[in-house]
């Protein structure tokens, strides 16, 4: 799976979790610029990512991936 595809799927997952139609997510979206992205929704995203890609992220990846870009990179490590 290439980066583009992973990125699209992660955006879809995040949109689903944030459930805000006005929100436009890009790879630059992060915990600091998306209001809905708090520690709880972060874990929902992690859970959905792990289910979707059938991978298991490490503790470090989960705590350090605070932006879409970082999430995508973390996922790619496992594919």
């Amino acid at each position, binding site marked *: 799976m290439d980066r583009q595809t992973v990125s699209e799927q992660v955006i879809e997952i995040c949109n689903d979790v944030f459930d805000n139609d006005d929100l436009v997510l890009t790879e630059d979206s992060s915990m600091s610029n998306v209001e809905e992205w708090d520690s709880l929704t972060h*874990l929902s995203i992690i859970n959905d990512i792990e289910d979707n890609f059938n991978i*298991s992220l490490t503790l470090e990846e989960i*705590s350090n991936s605070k932006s879409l870009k970082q999430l995508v990179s973390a996922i790619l490590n496992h594919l």
Partner: protein
Amino acid sequence: MYTFKELRKASNVQIEGKKMKLAVLGNCSTQFLRIAILGNAKLQGINLDVFDADYNQIDAQLLNNQSEVYAFNPDNIILWLATDKLYEEFLDMPIEQKTEFADLYIEKIQRYWQLINKNSESKILQMNFTEIDDKALGQYSAKIEYTFIYQIRKLNWLLQQAMNQNSNVYPVDILSIQTQIGQSNLYSSSFYYNAKMTVSPSALPYISKAVTDILKSMSGKIKKCIVLDLDNTLWGGVIGDDGLNNIEIGELGRGHAFSNFQRWLKQLKQMGIILAVCSKNNEDIAKEPFEKHEDMILKLDDISVFIANWQDKASNIKEIQQNLNIGMDSIVFVDDNPFERNLVKQMIPEVEVPEMPEDPADYLNFLQNCNYFDVVSFSIKDADRTKQYKAEFQRKKSEQSFMSIDEYLKDLQMIGSVSFFEESKYSRIAQLTQRSNQFNFRTIRYTEDEIRKISEDKNCIPLYFTLKDRFGDHGLVCVVIMKKEDDKTVFIDTWLMSCRVLKRGMEEFVVDNIIKMAKEKGFSTVKAEYIPTNKNMLVKDVYKKFGFKEYEKNKYIINTDNYISKNVFIKEEI
């Protein structure tokens, strides 16, 4: 089982109905549990509001009688002391105190209960303890009281004793979930260390279901009756075809699985669940194993209502329900046949219809995991209700209630096919002639070789039929062999059908094709015969129903030009 994602979405849905309030108190992070319980409850139609106290606030919330939890005025409080936290506390204890661990904890829990009872009207949902075996002394730990596994097992034992003495406490059996799904599915280290969540999101559907099952039971939604099919549900095989000595029950092979299933059902009955039978069979044949088969665990005495006939099962379940005078939603219907399950599901959506596994060996585990029989009280005195219901049934035994199933049959989108015998089907056709007893007019048995000869005989019209519907393919379910008597007349030597496809329009489809085929081959007269056996009473009047004239006892005739097409529900596959 729902996924956590589905529960999360459902948790925001607004629903109507009486509001129930639940507070969650844990020594661990409970936000996801809150979401999962909310979602599960709403999917079950319970209008639930959940208050989630902050992490590790149990003492503060319960000691202060003005606390947020008490102010919320919950109907129920969940107390969740997760083993992972207990384990850390245990490790930090000096070794000489460790043998007191379970005793200290049960005191603490009972003090929580006292506080809740003093400061609120709330009921208590108490989670028991999952096990962590840290192998401190290897397996030897299991007998040494200084180890955690020894103490946590002891704590579970003390807890069940304490709950037994306290009617306001209801167990949430998370230990049983750990046993069912395994520690590797229950626990996720990254979620624990990231967020102090002691269970992984994929385990939350199980835990929230356990909680919701109690809430449902508290609001009176309990299962009272289990309606059972017989053939391939209570025993292996078909009693009408295989006979008393050939059904699978007992301690051998597949029979063992059916026996254990019956053992469990017998226990359910002892605990107060009503057992009823609903079978497509002649009543005397259906009752035979209960009366005569020595390996049957269930006896006729165990069955409150016994219905065996050829009506559709939805009508029969309605009769059972009226006789027992219980709600439709308190009935669980267990049948191996997807057709019957779907019919009941569509005609009486309130009835719980578990999608039984294919393999009968899996029935028991599957049904046990469904956890249909959660109650919130029990008294051994009023447990076995079978006798009273049996008497009630005898009194009220009345006319069968009929109900139109045309809509359902239309909705099945059935497709039938008719073909001449072919090589690859010989063995299945021979097998059907040997095994079918009930829908079989003349019960003539053929070997595979004889089927081959019939197939090659110019004076025979050998047909087989298949049926499928939108739920699946039934395969080859009917055999017709017609033999030429003279230039104008053909005789139906064999017509047999699998009982699985009775009363759903297949008979009509077959007779239409018999007449059509006779005409095409230039015959103007079709003759037929019914040879009674003690198993085929079912088909006694079928030819009459299709407009054949009885010209001699059990012998029938029809002129193909006088026949009016009867098929409505089955489309022919070209």
